[in-house]
C-alpha cells in the first residue's frame, strides 16, 4: 500500500481548502509491470504511421513525479504516431484489458504535421469485475494549420485506477479538439496541459464524467494562451451519485503577448445524491490587457420543474433523471461520430445512472 | 455670409487595410437635411465614423473642412465639442452611469459651462415626453437593458440635449417600427433650424416618408454615384440600387 500526492494546481491557494492537490492513500501500485498484449489498432494507413517506439518524455506538469517516472522507465506500450496528410477515417487504438493484460503503462506521442487532418480514438476498456491499472502519457504536437480531433474513452471497471497526463503544443492556426469520456476507476485522475503558442491557435476540451459509489474523479486542466487571437474553450459536464467525489481544477492562463486571445470555461456538476461532493476551482490568470476571459461553474441537483415535466409524460424518477443528465451530455456526445462507439458510451451512461 | 457647414473633399478611408471609401465629395450647408442611401457594405457607416475620426478607420487621402477648419486629424472628443454629433447604429452600454449623469457631464464638456441640475432635469423630462420615453429611464444605466428602439430614442434624446450644429444619424431608423420612426422624425424636426444641419444615413427610406429632406445621395462601393432630391429616394424605393451598381 502506498499513498500518492498528485495533480498540483499551477497556483496554490489555502491548504485548508483541500484542493491544491489530491492525496490518494491505500493505493495498490503494481510492483512488477507485466507485458500488455491486447491492443487493437484500426485504420492505420500510410497517411498515419503508428510505430511501436519509445519517445523520451518530459512534462511541464504531469500528474506527479512518480507517475511520470513510471511511464518514462516502465511503459509497456509505446506508440509514436505521425500524421502526414488528411485522413478521412477515424484511427482507433483500443486497449482491451483482460486477466492477462491488466496493467497498462502507455506512452503515446503524436505529431500532426502541417496542413494535416485526423481523428484519433483511444479507448481503454475492461470487464466490470477486472481490477486494472492504467498510467499513461499522451503528448501531441500540432503543427501549423493542422486539425486534430482526439477522443479518449475510459470504460475501465470501478475497481481500477486510471491515470492520464496529456500535454499539447499547438502552433499557428492549428485546431485541436479533445473529447474525454471519463467513467471508470475507483480513482480516475487526469492532468491536461495545453501550450497554445501559435497565433490563431484553437483548442477545445470537452469532458463528460459520471461518478458513482465511492469513485474519486480528479481533473486538473491547464491552458496557457500565448499566441495572438488564440482560443481555449473548456466545457465539463458531469453527474455524481452515491458517495462519489469530484475535484475540478481548470486554469486558463493568459500569458503576456496573447493579444485578443479568448478563453472560456464552463463547468457544470449535477448532484444526484445528498452525499456526493463536488469541488471546483475554476481559475483565470491574466497578464495581458486585450483579452476576453470568462468562466462559469455551477452545481446542484437536476431541476424539479424539468423532472416534473418529464415525469408527467409517464417516466419514472430514475428514467427522468437519466434523461436530463443525458440532455446535458448530448452536445459533447455529438463529437463522437463513430456510431458503434457512441452506442457503447450511451449504454455505459445508462448502466452508471441505474 | 458663408453658409457652408461642412465640406468633404476626395475622402479615401481604409478599414483593416481595405479601402472602403474611394473618394467621397459632399458639401452640407446650414439649414439643410441630407440623406446618404446605399446598399449594405457601400461605406455609409464608414463615412459617419470617418467624420468623427473613429480610430478603427484610417484616412488615406482627402479632407474634411468644418466651419472653415480641417478637422480630419482632430480627436473624436474635440470634433464633438466643435458641434458634430453622431447617433450610433449600435449604442454602447455603460453600466453604473445613469442617463442623467452622463448627459449632464457631456453637456458640461460640450458647452464648457456648469449645468444647473434642476433646469437640466426639467429639460430632459420634456424631451423624453416628446419622444415617448419612460421618464424612469433617466436614472437607469446608459443603454443597459434598453431595447433596440429605446436605444435609438435615447440617441435622439442625446442629440436634442447636446444640440450640435451637425447631427449625423447612422441607421437610426433601422429595426424600428412605424410609430418609433415617426417619433424619431419628430425629434429631428424639433432639432432642426436654419443654423444647423442633419445628415441621415440609411439603407431604406422609411424615415423619408415622414420627413422632408433637401438632398439624397446614393453611395455605392465607396463613391457617391448620384445626387438628387426626395424623388431620388422614391426611385430607389421602387427600383432598388441595381442601375447604380458597377458591373
Amino acid at each position, binding site marked *: 500500500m502506498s499513498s500518492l500526492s498528485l495533480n498540483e494546481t499551477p*497556483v*496554490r*491557494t*489555502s*491548504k485548508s481548502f483541500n*484542493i491544491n492537490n489530491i492525496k490518494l492513500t491505500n493505493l495498490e501500485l503494481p510492483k512488477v509491470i507485466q507485458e500488455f498484449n491486447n491492443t487493437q489498432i484500426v485504420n492505420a494507413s500510410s497517411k498515419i504511421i503508428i510505430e511501436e517506439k519509445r519517445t523520451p518524455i518530459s512534462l511541464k506538469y504531469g500528474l506527479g513525479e512518480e507517475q511520470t517516472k513510471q511511464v518514462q522507465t516502465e511503459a509497456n506500450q509505446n506508440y509514436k504516431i505521425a500524421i502526414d496528410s488528411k485522413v478521412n477515417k477515424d484511427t482507433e487504438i483500443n486497449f482491451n484489458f483482460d486477466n492477462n493484460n491488466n496493467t497498462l503503462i502507455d506512452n503515446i506521442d503524436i505529431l500532426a504535421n502541417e496542413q494535416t487532418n485526423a481523428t484519433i480514438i483511444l479507448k481503454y476498456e475492461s470487464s466490470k469485475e477486472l481490477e486494472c491499472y492504467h498510467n499513461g502519457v499522451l503528448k501531441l504536437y500540432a503543427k501549423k494549420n493542422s486539425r486534430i480531433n482526439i477522443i479518449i474513452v475510459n470504460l475501465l471497471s470501478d475497481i481500477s485506477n486510471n491515470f492520464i497526463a496529456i500535454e499539447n503544443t499547438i502552433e499557428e492556426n492549428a485546431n485541436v479538439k479533445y473529447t474525454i469520456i471519463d467513467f471508470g476507476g475507483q480513482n480516475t485522475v487526469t492532468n491536461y496541459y495545453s501550450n497554445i503558442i501559435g497565433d490563431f491557435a484553437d483548442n477545445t476540451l470537452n469532458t463528460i464524467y459520471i461518478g458513482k459509489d465511492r469513485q474519486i474523479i480528479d481533473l486538473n486542466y491547464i491552458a496557457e494562451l500565448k499566441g495572438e487571437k488564440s482560443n481555449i474553450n473548456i466545457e465539463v459536464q458531469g453527474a455524481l451519485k452515491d458517495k462519489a467525489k469530484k475535484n475540478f481544477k481548470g486554469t486558463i492562463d*493568459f500569458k503576456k503577448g496573447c*493579444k485578443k486571445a479568448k478563453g472560456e470555461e464552463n463547468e457544470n*456538476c449535477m*448532484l444526484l*445524491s*445528498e452525499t456526493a*461532493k*463536488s*469541488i*471546483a*476551482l*475554476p*481559475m*483565470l*490568470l*491574466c*497578464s*495581458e*490587457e*486585450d*483579452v476576453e*476571459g*470568462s*468562466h*462559469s*461553474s*455551477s*452545481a*446542484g*441537483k437536476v431541476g424539479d420543474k424539468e423532472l416534473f415535466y418529464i415525469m408527467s409524460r409517464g417516466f419514472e424518477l430514475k428514467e427522468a433523471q437519466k434523461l436530463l443528465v443525458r440532455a446535458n451530455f448530448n452536445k459533447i456526445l455529438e463529437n463522437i461520430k463513430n456510431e458503434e462507439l457512441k452506442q457503447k458510451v450511451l449504454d455505459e451512461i445508462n448502466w452508471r445512472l441505474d | 455670409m458663408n453658409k457652408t457647414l461642412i465640406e468633404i473633399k476626395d475622402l479615401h478611408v481604409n478599414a483593416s487595410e481595405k479601402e472602403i471609401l474611394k473618394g467621397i465629395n459632399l458639401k452640407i450647408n446650414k439649414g439643410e437635411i441630407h440623406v446618404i442611401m446605399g446598399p449594405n457594405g457601400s461605406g455609409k457607416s464608414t463615412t459617419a465614423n470617418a467624420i*468623427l475620426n*473613429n*480610430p*478603427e478607420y484610417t484616412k488615406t487621402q482627402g479632407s474634411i473642412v468644418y466651419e472653415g477648419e480641417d478637422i480630419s486629424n482632430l*480627436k*473624436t*472628443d474635440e*470634433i*464633438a465639442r466643435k458641434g458634430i*454629433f*453622431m447617433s*450610433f447604429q449600435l449604442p*454602447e452600454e*455603460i*453600466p*453604473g*452611469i445613469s442617463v442623467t449623469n*452622463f448627459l449632464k*457631464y*457631456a453637456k*458640461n*464638456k460640450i458647452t464648457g459651462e456648469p449645468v444647473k441640475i434642476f433646469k437640466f432635469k426639467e429639460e430632459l423630462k420634456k424631451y423624453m415626453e416628446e419622444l415617448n420615453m419612460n421618464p424612469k429611464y433617466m436614472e437607469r444605466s446608459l443603454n443597459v437593458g434598453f431595447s433596440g428602439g429605446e436605444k435609438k430614442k435615447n440617441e435622439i434624446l*442625446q442629440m436634442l440635449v*447636446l444640440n450640435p450644429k451637425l447631427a449625423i444619424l447612422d441607421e437610426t431608423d433601422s429595426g424600428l417600427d412605424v410609430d418609433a420612426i415617426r417619433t424619431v422624425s419628430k425629434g429631428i424636426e424639433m432639432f432642426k433650424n436654419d443654423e444647423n444641419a442633419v445628415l441621415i444615413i440609411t439603407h431604406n427610406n422609411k424615415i423619408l416618408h415622414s420627413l422632408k429632406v433637401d438632398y439624397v445621395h446614393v453611395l455605392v462601393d465607396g463613391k457617391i454615384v448620384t445626387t438628387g432630391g426626395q424623388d431620388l429616394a422614391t426611385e430607389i424605393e421602387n427600383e432598388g440600387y441595381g442601375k447604380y451598381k458597377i458591373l
Partner: protein
Amino acid sequence: MSKTKIEEFDRSIYNLKNKDNYDYKIQKGITKEIIEEISNQKNDPDWMRDFRLEALEVYNKLELPTWGPDLSELNMDEIATYVRPKTKLNNSWDDVPEDIKNTFYKLGIPEAEKKSLAGVGAQYDSEVVYHSMKDDLKKQGVIYTDMETAIREYPDIVKKYFMKCVPVNDHKFVALHGAVWSGGSFVYVPKNVKVDIPLQSYFRLNSPESGQFEHTLIIVEEGASLHFIEGCSAPKYSKINLHAGCVELIVKDNAYLRYSTIENWSKNMLNLNTKKAMIGKNAQVDWVTGSFGSKISMLYPLSQLNGEGAKTEYTGISFAGKGQNLDTGFKAIHNAPNTSSVVNAKSISKNGGKCTYRSLIKISPKAKNSKSSVSCESLMLDDISVSDTIPVNDIQTDEVEFSHEAKIGKISDKTIFYLMSRGLSEEDAKAMIVRGFAYPISKELPVEYAVEMNNLINIELQGTIG
C-alpha cells in the same frame, strides 16, 4: 478647458506625516520579554497577559502561508508592535493634542461625525485617542468604546467572545495579533435595538517601522441591527509597516449587521487582516469593502452561516496600482439549512499592479436548500498589470443552487469612442467607465464614503491614462 475632479482632489491629506511624537514606543521585534512589556504598559489583567503569551507560542510554531503574495520582506525584528501616543482616551476633540486632532480633521472625521454618524472612535498608532457616541444610543444600552475600556468595564462579555470566533491558531498573523493586539473598538447592541445611523472607527498609523493590531469585537443581539464603518490610512514611509487587525462579529438570531470598510493604507503597508462573522438564525451580515491602499493585502472576510435561514452578501472592489499586490476575496461557510450567500467582487489592475480574487464557498452536508451565487469581474487597464481569479467552490450536498461566474477583460475601444463622440476626452471616458464599473460597490456606501471612493478611483487613474 474645464477642470475635472481629478485635479481638485488632494492625495496629500492621507500622506500628512506628524512627527513620531510618542509617549512610549516598544523596542522592535517580537520576543517573550517584549510581549510581557506590552502587557505591563497596558496594565493587562492576568487572563490577558496569559492569553498573549500563549498566542506568542502559537505564533512561533506556525509557518508563513505557502500560497498568495510573497511576504519575505516582512522582518518582525524591524517592527515596533506597540506605540502609545502622547494622550489618553478623550471624549471631546478639544482635548486631543493639536497634531493628532489636525490629522483627523483633515481626514474629515469630526465633520462626518456631526453630519452622518451616531458615534466615532479614532485610533492613532496603538491606542484609541477619541471615542464618543450619541446619548440616545447610550440610553438604549448600546455600548461603543475602545477594547481596553471594554476589558475593564465589561470583562464577562469580552472574555466570553474575545478570539473565540477567530481562534488564535487560525494562521500565523492571527497568532501575532493575539500576542500584541492593542486598541480597536467594542460594540454591543442589545436585543431589538436598531442603530439606524452608522458608527465609525477610524484607524490611523503614523509611526514609522511599526505595526497596528487593533481588535474589533461587535455583538449584535437578537433582533438588533447596526451599520458599522471602518476606515484606515497611514502616511507613506520607505520602510515596511504592518497591519494585522482582527474583526470578530457575533450576529445573533434575526439580527442585521452591515460592515463597511474603505481601506487606504499607504503603499509601504503589509495589510494582513482577519475578519469573521458568526451569523445566527435568519440573521444577515453584509460586507462592503473597498481596497485601495497597501503594498500587499491578504484579506478574506469569512461569513459563517450557522443558523437556519442566515444570509450574507459580499460586495467588494480592489484597485491595484504600481507596486501593489492586493490578494482579497471572501469566504462563506454554509452550516445550516436555507442559508444564502451572494458575492459581487470587482477588481481593477493598472500600472503593473496585481489583483487576485481568492475565495471559498463551502456548502456543508447540513446546509440543505442553500443558495449561493458568485460574480467576479476584473478590469485590466494596461498590459503590464496582472489579474487572477482563484475561487474554490466546495459543494457537499445536492439540495443546493450554486452558480459562479467570472469575467476578465479591458475597456472596449468601441465604448471609449462612443463616449468621446459625446465630447468626453479619452481620460474622462475611461474614468467614467471605471466609476460605472465600481458603482455597484459605491452605491452600497453612505454618500460621503461613495464620494471618497470615487475620489480615490480618480487619484488612482491619474497619470496612467492617455
